[in-house]
């Protein structure tokens, strides 16, 4: 299997009469895009706004961040199960808008956070602040229940992303990157000397605002399963998770899963990347054990030597993380864990809700409890009211000058547990 990413760097997004991509500028017809999104009769109205790097702009509350992609060739279509049919993806060519994202905003529940600041101190905590972001503001019909509301916003975001990238079809990309991934039998013959490695991608599936979809299927109650890494890059995994913005895996993280990309880039050189296993993060302890046992058995059946695992969220997922680590290590499979921490304002607390002595190789993507003061921005995209509500906002979190004192856990993707950002904690 081979997948080529045709990368188009976006320098700016502008609204125009017709949608197109020219000389690095993405022109969007609000009217056309709105009509496309409003095929969903649950949407009452929709508007769009753009945020650019360096602007005095805050986007809040953010539900999901998505990178625009569209398939130039190959089977299936991007975001299978939502935009594309459920046909297998992960081959051919996919057009990708780099330095560009869709951020869906809209209040599903009152307490929702998720901030992107395009400038100032908050901008240092994620890569999104360096991107040109299109924000669809989705207003649902009255009386829509929360589950449907969430689904409506989720799908509208995916459709927007696909629509944007579609403008680049048949154009020459700025650069390309090709990933190759053989069948297991082929790679075993090609790289007999290299250590065999599997990536365990923990997917959350606990209920409203806590779900993940694979080819459109909610992964609740699934047995651990295997998926090709190239499929993930074509949007086969979608986030329906809109809690804990600092360490939730947004759709853009799945599309660019940095662990998958790193393993693919070293595949055939330093290691033999066998594949991706999806392990369920359930609320029930028995399901957690079942998932970890089953995943570790799949690793055994594949005969791998090593495993790297990422979690989503904090608290209960640490039990899944540690169980997976323990069961893999017991089978002699060397394990590395990728996580983040809540170790208190001063960094003195133990930052994980579960631990195991087998976890001797851990990557941490930062302490979400670090406080940061975000100055008032000239413009807020999304919901000004949320700024007041955020983190239980009152005198404690909003200064007289309109600045916000928040934990970086409120900033989208700040401590991404797939290791998307460039941060860690150090002991001092």
């Amino acid at each position: 299997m081979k997948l080529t990413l045709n990368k188009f760097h976006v320098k700016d997004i502008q609204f125009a009469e017709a949608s197109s991509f020219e000389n690095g500028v993405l022109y969007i017809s609000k009217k056309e895009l709105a009509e496309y999104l409003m095929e969903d009769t649950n949407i009452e109205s929709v508007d769009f706004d753009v945020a650019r790097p360096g602007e005095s702009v805050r986007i809040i509350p953010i539900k999901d961040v998505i990178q625009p992609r569209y398939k130039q060739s190959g089977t299936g279509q991007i975001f299978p199960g939502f935009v594309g049919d459920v046909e297998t993806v992960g081959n051919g060519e996919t057009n990708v808008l780099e330095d560009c994202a869709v951020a869906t905003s809209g209040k599903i529940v009152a307490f929702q956070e998720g901030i992107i600041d395009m400038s100032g101190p908050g901008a240092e905590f994620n890569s999104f602040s360096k991107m040109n972001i299109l924000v669809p503001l989705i207003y649902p019909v009255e009386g829509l229940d929360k589950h449907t509301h969430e689904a409506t916003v989720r799908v509208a975001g995916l459709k927007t992303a696909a629509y944007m990238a579609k403008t680049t079809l048949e154009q020459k990309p700025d650069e390309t990157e090709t990933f190759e991934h053989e069948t297991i039998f082929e790679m075993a013959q090609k790289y007999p000397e290299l250590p065999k490695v599997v990536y365990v991608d923990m997917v959350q599936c606990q209920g409203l605002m806590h779900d993940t979809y694979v080819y459109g299927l909610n992964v609740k109650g699934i047995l651990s399963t295997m998926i090709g890494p190239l499929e993930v890059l074509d949007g086969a995994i979608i986030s329906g998770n809109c809690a804990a913005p600092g360490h939730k895996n947004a759709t853009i993280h799945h599309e660019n899963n940095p662990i998958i990309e790193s393993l693919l880039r070293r595949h055939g050189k330093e290691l033999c990347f066998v594949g991706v296993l999806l392990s369920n993060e359930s609320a029930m302890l028995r399901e957690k054990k079942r998932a970890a046992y089953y995943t570790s058995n799949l690793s055994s059946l594949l005969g791998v030597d090593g495993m790297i695992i990422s979690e989503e969220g904090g608290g209960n997922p640490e039990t899944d993380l540690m169980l997976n680590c323990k069961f893999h290590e017991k089978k002699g499979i060397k394990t590395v864990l990728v996580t983040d921490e809540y170790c208190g304002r001063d960094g003195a607390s133990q930052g994980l809700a579960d631990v195991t002595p087998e976890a001797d190789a851990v990557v941490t993507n930062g302490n979400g409890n670090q406080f940061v003061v975000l100055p008032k921005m000239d413009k807020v995209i999304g919901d000004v009211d949320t700024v007041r509500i955020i983190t239980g906002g009152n005198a404690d979190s909003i200064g007289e000058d309109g600045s916000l004192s928040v934990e970086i856990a409120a900033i989208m993707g700040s401590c991404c547990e797939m290791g998307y950002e460039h941060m860690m904690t150090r002991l001092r």
Partner: protein
Amino acid sequence: MKKIVHYVNQFYGQIGAEEAAGQKPLLCDGPVGPGTGLSALFKEEAEITATIICGDNYFADNQSEALGEILSMIEEIKPDMVIAGPGFNAGRYGLACGTICYEVKKRFSIPVLTALYPENPGAEMFHSKIYIVETAISAGGMRKTLPVMSALALKLLNGEEIGFPEEEGYIPQGFRVNVHTEKNGAERGVDMLIKKLKGEPFVTELPMPVFDRVKPAPAVKDMAHAKIALITSGGIVPQGNPDHIPSANAGIFGTYDISECENLTGQEYMTVHGGYDPVYATEDPDRVLPLDAVREIEKEGGIGELFGKYYSTVGNTTAVSSAKKFAEEIAQDLLRNNVQAVILTSN
């Protein structure tokens, strides 16, 4: 030039060894002992203008008075900084160094610095509150420690930003802080996995807390027929300390016959533990190793029998790794002698 006051104990203050441990706080001009080495390293940037010398026992036994005297000496001198030690793994000295530095920092808001072995109780108590340079276990590490101390002291004096423990040589204070990295988390994770697979050394970014949880063994069902043994870390040994168990940081344990003994007396037994007041243990060693009480229960038929030997070591600043090693050896011996349960006492 910045003024520094240096604190040392009677030994490093060149007054005497254990016999001078009762020395009251003494103020001397200029550097003494390790202070001379430090002073040389400060070059023209700072100087030790005074040294306070105090006996370890005097400080331990009269802490509030000793501290009061020392603080008023410091208040009078008005130094820019106070340095104590290095105290290596000396328990009483380490506690004095930590206490004085912490109190000075609190009262006078000036920088302080000491240097201790990480397992020194002074380090355990104060590492999160003050900077403590990490030293070797004994004074053999003096030559390596002084340059690290002087460099960190000058940074503190000049109000410079203090780097991470690995760079500055201090014992981690226990705070995790966010730092930006060149490689993203995923690249670091895959790097770590490759190293782990190759069997190469790697450094975890988040060490798990120390797991010393011991699952308790099931209760002894039939105590009336059980063979019981006694173990103590309270340092009770036959008079004369035949195995020369040290009073602190013990590297050995002793095994002593009590098959004919009903009751421990101060004539025949003693404590060698250096971390507590030995008066009451010397009066009646049963207070630490309760042989008399166990013999009584044995007579009443509460237990089957008392094993004829007991095991003893000194827990005072003894490294966990040593304690673990003792436990493994003792457990083997207990198994060989069909002992079903033990009573462990400290001091």
